[in-house]
């Protein structure tokens, strides 16, 4: 197959775009697509201080690479979850994130959950007895909290994650099958800051196929963690991704179409009845915005777990500020 731009040997054929490209033209094309999403959804501008949540995977490292190439001021945040899974998942993903940042002279903040708060994510899940044997719900809660916290403390105006089209469509499918109006109303490429001083949240890869991100990492020579988090195995997200890929196989472009028509329907007000601004106020302990009365769920979770572990509870305010290591 030939590259549509130069006639050279193509390395990727994107049926959804009826477009085949060679390595060089692909490396130029993908960042242009990301830039288009950033502009179209008004995610951030070159004046913004951007914080990229990196996991060591292809999406987040690829995104960081693209943002740096596009000239944005983007620092990274790696959150160490303490997940082993038989092959040192967290250790490996941290090492890859550090190597990536080091080689490019990019600034990476590192927060180790265990060192900062006193337990690993799997431990936290077991002790708190949340999530039916899966650590994903406490993991998500901690990641969201720490990202907001570091963005806030570091003066970042935009917080970005590497969610790709396949991630977004999997969530969309799940929410649609449940007609979860509230979730549908909130699923968006960019979420405005809910309070002054908080960072905007954006997903610059929301229109990029997962396959395109994997291809970008390979062609660009990004060393990323190939094995996924051991707790992702058998997740509903993976199940929906598989289903959607079957659809895509028969109808190239179906995933993108599903997502874009959802955004259009939302724009036209289809979910506005379900949209409600959550009632946010500051957590009495840590000051982070929360919908819970009194203390936020992060503070309450850690109180419970630290009590079980015999650690002092009532985390002092200084500890609620995670210890952040920064390099280079």
């Amino acid at each position, binding site marked *: *197959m030939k590259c549509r731009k130069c006639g050279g040997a*193509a*390395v*990727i*054929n994107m049926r959804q775009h009826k477009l*085949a490209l060679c*390595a060089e033209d692909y490396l130029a094309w993908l960042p242009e697509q990301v830039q288009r999403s950033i502009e179209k959804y008004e995610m951030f501008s070159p004046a913004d201080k951007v914080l990229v949540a990196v996991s060591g*995977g*292809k*999406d987040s490292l690829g995104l960081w690479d693209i943002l740096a190439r596009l000239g944005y001021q983007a620092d990274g945040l790696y959150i160490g979850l303490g997940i082993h899974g038989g092959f040192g998942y967290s250790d490996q993903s941290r090492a890859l994130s550090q190597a990536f940042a080091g080689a490019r002279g990019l600034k990476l903040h590192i927060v180790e959950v265990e060192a900062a708060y006193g337990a690993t994510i799997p431990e936290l899940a077991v002790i708190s007895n949340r999530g039916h044997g*899966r650590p*994903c*719900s406490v*993991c*998500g809660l901690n*990641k969201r909290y720490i990202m907001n916290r570091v963005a806030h403390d570091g003066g970042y105006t935009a917080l970005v994650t590497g969610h790709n089209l*396949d*991630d977004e469509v999997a969530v969309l499918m799940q929410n649609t099958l449940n007609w979860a109006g509230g979730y549908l109303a909130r699923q968006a490429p960019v979420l405005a800051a809910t309070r002054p001083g908080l960072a905007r949240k954006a997903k610059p890869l929301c229109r990029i196929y*997962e*396959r395109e*991100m*994997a*291809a970008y990492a*390979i*062609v660009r020579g990004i060393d990323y963690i*190939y094995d*996924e*988090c051991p*707790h*992702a195995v058998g*997740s*509903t*997200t*993976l199940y929906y*991704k*598989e289903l959607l*890929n*079957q659809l*895509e*196989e028969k109808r190239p472009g179906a995933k993108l179409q599903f997502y874009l028509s959802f955004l259009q329907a939302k724009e036209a007000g289809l979910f506005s009845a379900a949209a409600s601004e959550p009632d946010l106020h500051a957590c009495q302990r840590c000051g982070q915005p929360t919908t819970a009365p009194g203390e936020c769920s992060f503070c309450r979770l850690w109180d419970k777990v630290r009590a079980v572990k015999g650690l002092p509870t009532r985390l002092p305010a200084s500890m609620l500020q995670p210890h952040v290591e920064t390099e280079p």
Partner: protein
Amino acid sequence: MPVKLVYRGKEYEANAGSTVRDAVRKIGLQPETVLAVLDGKLITDDTVLREGMQIRLVAVISGGAG
């Protein structure tokens, strides 16, 4: 020499003369979910397999609940 496909550490044999896409389907994978790498370089899935080729299939899907 047969054609070899390697996916998640496992080896599969494929027929010379078929395309990467057909070979991927034949071992039960969705073509949409893998990329083919030959000698460290990405190749498109209409590439016709030749005797002696060793192709690494890279899974593109990852991720859990977030």
